């Protein structure tokens, strides 16, 4: 890329875009070329670092939104990190599908600690993680596994997931329950946090491709459905579902994130857009991505901000809302 092109890209990314809807503004930052940012996690502290998995470069990325500075910490030979979350200890925790291990990076020392899955498990194709209310990390493996790591003791357990291949996104509800989505299995499952047993819960649409899950403040579980192009909502209290089709000709719902106002953020690969769904009005707002084929595979946020890695373009974008 020539210098003039690089300058043009930096200038374009530095100029925030403003959408009419509820004054949502966006801002984007470039990360190292070829890094392929897959997942992102923002430190809950306002203005804090934003972590991303540089899947194609085997590293954890650190973006400082205040300065735009980016640092990447290599996670070791063979690393291909998929998911990243911020733990209750404030550290980034990574599900590394290349290493077949859970990885923690100490931000004070930059030391890396790794918990490998048992050899007897084999390759799990690790995907995403969440912490429960007791500080135990739960994770999914797309080859057909879910498991837990107790950071206090280092004990790691892995279970065969019901119906085999597919466990993908995973999330904890405000009441402390843990659910995961099975993409290939087209269901969600609730994990018994004592026994590890997962109970399958089938959404109403057959073969919908449940990809990721997130919970709102009322303990509703929101599901992004890749195959059906829908977003669905499971109410654990009544075991009932609601389903909404995303707008457009051929929606494909990849990621879901529910913000602190209970608005539901979704990425639609069919429309190459970010969407915000208002459950009260049952209406969608559409924020087209600025770049073709953005391929946003996951979102995570903090107060007033929803973060999205554009994996195809090595760019991280924040959507700022709520009077910003």
């Amino acid at each position, binding site marked *: 890329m020539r210098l003039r092109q690089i300058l043009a890209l930096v200038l374009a990314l530095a100029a925030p875009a403003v959408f009419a809807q509820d004054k949502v503004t966006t801002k984007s930052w470039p990360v190292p070329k070829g890094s392929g940012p897959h997942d992102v996690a923002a430190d809950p502290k306002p203005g804090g670092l934003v972590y991303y998995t540089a899947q194609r470069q085997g590293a954890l990325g650190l973006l400082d939104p205040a300065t735009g500075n980016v640092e990447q910490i290599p996670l*070791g030979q063979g690393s291909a990190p998929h998911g990243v979350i911020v733990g209750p200890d404030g550290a980034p925790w990574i599900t590394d*599908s290349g290493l077949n291990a859970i990885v923690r990076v100490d931000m004070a020392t930059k030391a890396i600690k790794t918990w490998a899955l048992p050899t007897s498990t084999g*390759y799990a194709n690790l995907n995403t993680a969440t912490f429960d209310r007791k500080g135990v990390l739960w994770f999914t493996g797309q*080859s057909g596994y879910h498991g837990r790591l107790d950071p206090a003791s280092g004990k790691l357990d892995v279970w065969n997931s019901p119906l085999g291949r597919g466990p993908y996104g995973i999330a904890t509800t405000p009441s402390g329950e843990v659910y995961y989505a099975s993409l290939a299995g087209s269901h969600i499952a609730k994990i018994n946090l004592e026994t590890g047993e997962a109970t399958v819960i089938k959404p109403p649409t057959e073969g919908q491709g449940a990809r990721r899950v997130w919970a709102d403040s009322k303990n509703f579980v929101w599901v992004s459905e890749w195959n059906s192009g829908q977003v669905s909502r499971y109410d654990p209290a009544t075991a009932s579902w609601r389903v909404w089709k995303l707008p457009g000709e051929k929606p494909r719902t990849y990621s879901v994130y529910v913000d602190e106002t209970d608005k539901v953020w979704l990425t639609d690969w069919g429309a190459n857009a970010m969407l915000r769904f208002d459950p009260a009005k049952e209406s969608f707002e559409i924020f087209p991505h600025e770049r073709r084929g953005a391929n946003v595979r996951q979102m995570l946020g903090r107060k007033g901000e929803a973060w999205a890695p554009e994996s195809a373009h090595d760019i991280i974008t924040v959507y700022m809302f709520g009077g910003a």
Partner: protein
Amino acid sequence: MNARGLAVGFLVLGLASSACGAERICGACHSFPGFAEPAGAMQGPTLIGLLGRKVGSVRDFDYSDAMLEAGRAGIVWDEAMLRRYVEDPQAVVPGTFMAAPIFRDAAERERVLRQVLARRAP
């Protein structure tokens, strides 16, 4: 090699020697001979009959526009194409839905690729 390097080395060796075949890696999204499909639809097209097949041509599979365009351009799956694609899907077909390969190590990638090719349909 320091302690961390040694630990990572053992990890990689352990992974390579454990059950990390093509079923575990490719099978999360694709079906191929000898590996049954789960009840739901797969995220990637079947690998059965891949070699010699035009890109984006499995009937009734819901491809990305990028894959359909590649197919219209006449691109056909052969070993060289598959090798390049598995190394860097976005570089070969920009806009494809497939994420980065799990194994960045070339030898490991080749080992898995060989497993897939060895199990192609008769």
